[in-house]
């Protein structure tokens, strides 16, 4: 069974978002997603400073199985990307919710979070796939 932390919001395309008190969102992919992709070997990340809209393609994950687009679950300005992943993409497999985060952004519309799923809804979504 994959891990689905209660404190995150989830997109149907399997990205997770965690928002701190300052409105900074951290984005990654779920344990379910990394498990489905298999061993991840390379990642392409967005540029810090870029403005992205929700559902934009912001990153690419190359696993032993396939190349997969990663969609931003929320809109905002990218503040920081996790450059450590560029040389250690397997961190996404090992720790999808901790060391495997992709980027942080400054939220521009907190109401977008309401359109994402909570943990219970996301578990149901994965089961239905």
């Amino acid at each position, binding site marked *: 069974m994959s891990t689905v932390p209660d404190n995150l919001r989830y997109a149907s395309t399997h990205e997770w978002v965690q928002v701190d008190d300052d409105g900074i969102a951290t984005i990654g992919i779920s344990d379910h997603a990394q498990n489905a992709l*298999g*061993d991840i*070997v*390379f990642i392409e990340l967005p540029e810090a400073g870029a403005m992205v809209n929700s559902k934009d393609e912001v990153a690419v994950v*190359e696993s*032993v199985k396939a*190349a997969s687009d990663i969609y931003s679950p929320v809109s905002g300005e990218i503040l920081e990307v996790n450059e450590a992943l560029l040389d250690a993409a*397997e961190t996404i497999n090992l720790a999808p919710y901790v060391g495997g985060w992709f980027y942080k952004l400054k939220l521009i519309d907190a109401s977008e979070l309401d359109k994402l799923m909570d943990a219970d809804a996301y578990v149901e979504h994965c089961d239905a796939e």
Partner: protein
Amino acid sequence: MGQHTPLYQKHLDAGAKMVDFAGWDMPINYGSQIEEHQRVRSTAGVFDVSHMTVVDISGDDAKAYLRKLLANDVDKLDAEGRALYSAMLNENGGVIDDLIVYRMSFGYRIVVNCATRTKDLAWMNSHSTGFDVALVEKPGLAILAVHGPQSREKVCVVLDQGQLYPVKTAAIKLLANFSGVELGNWFIARTGYTGEKGLELIFPEKEAPAFWDKLLAAGVHPIGLGARDSLRLEAGMNLYGHDMDEEISPLAANMEQTIAWQPEDRDFIGRSAAVRHRAEQAAGSMPRLVGLVLEQRGVLREGQRILCDNGEGIITSGGFSPTLKHSIALARIPVNSHSCQADIRGRLTPVRIVKPNFVRFGKKVFE
């Protein structure tokens, strides 16, 4: 639900992620494909390939029949147990399947691909007319491939335990590459699909679960089909339905060496077409299967276009090489191409053309 090998429950017990493979439920990995790949390169791993099809061929004309059926020549098999890799061609010189044929005490044993089983059997039966041969499919057998630098020693340790197997390990230790030995109802050969030393064991399926347990207890790791594919790709070995098929000449699939052109009067099926293909190759109009290397980030994948100085080609197999830590591929490209670029998701990326053989015995082998 698909078909199950005798080790289906053992795969589940080992934590396998199961996938459909040509109608069979097979393990794609047991957690990490890359870890499994590295186990085979560094120690020893076991693959369940019991889904593959075994056909035993006996009768006075068995040799004459196979000399007609196969592009390689079973006359080269000068002793029992010897193995030969061959294409089975259609009249147009396309590849119906690739296979291994062993010379056995009773005649010959052929192991063909699982996905091509039905058409292979139909083809083999339809061309047996006029020959005194019996073709018998052997579904009750397990096939395990144990590969890696420690594979032979670990298999011998298991076979030596107790009196469970009618097998003399001395005979296995003496096996030359591409040869095997029949020991009771077991057949054990030094063949495989990884570029490492190893054995393939064909034996009664009821004995498979206990033997599997003993292999794992001896430190042999279960390996899924995912790592099987990345291992064979590093070894530059073709995969049927990807690197060649019925529309592809063996000359466009790096299989020239598996066609026995001599003696000239051996009339194997597809010979006249293959001779024409050879003329096309000499004239420069037959594409060739090459190796590609991408030393920067990114992954070459099957189906990606290759733009060469001399025309366009396509990747037939591609992926990440766990040994080399970058991507490699097999691609069919126009002859006399010297530089090329891969179209990776719309981005043209320079790749290097090399001989289609990347890793042997754990080491990089191309320049």
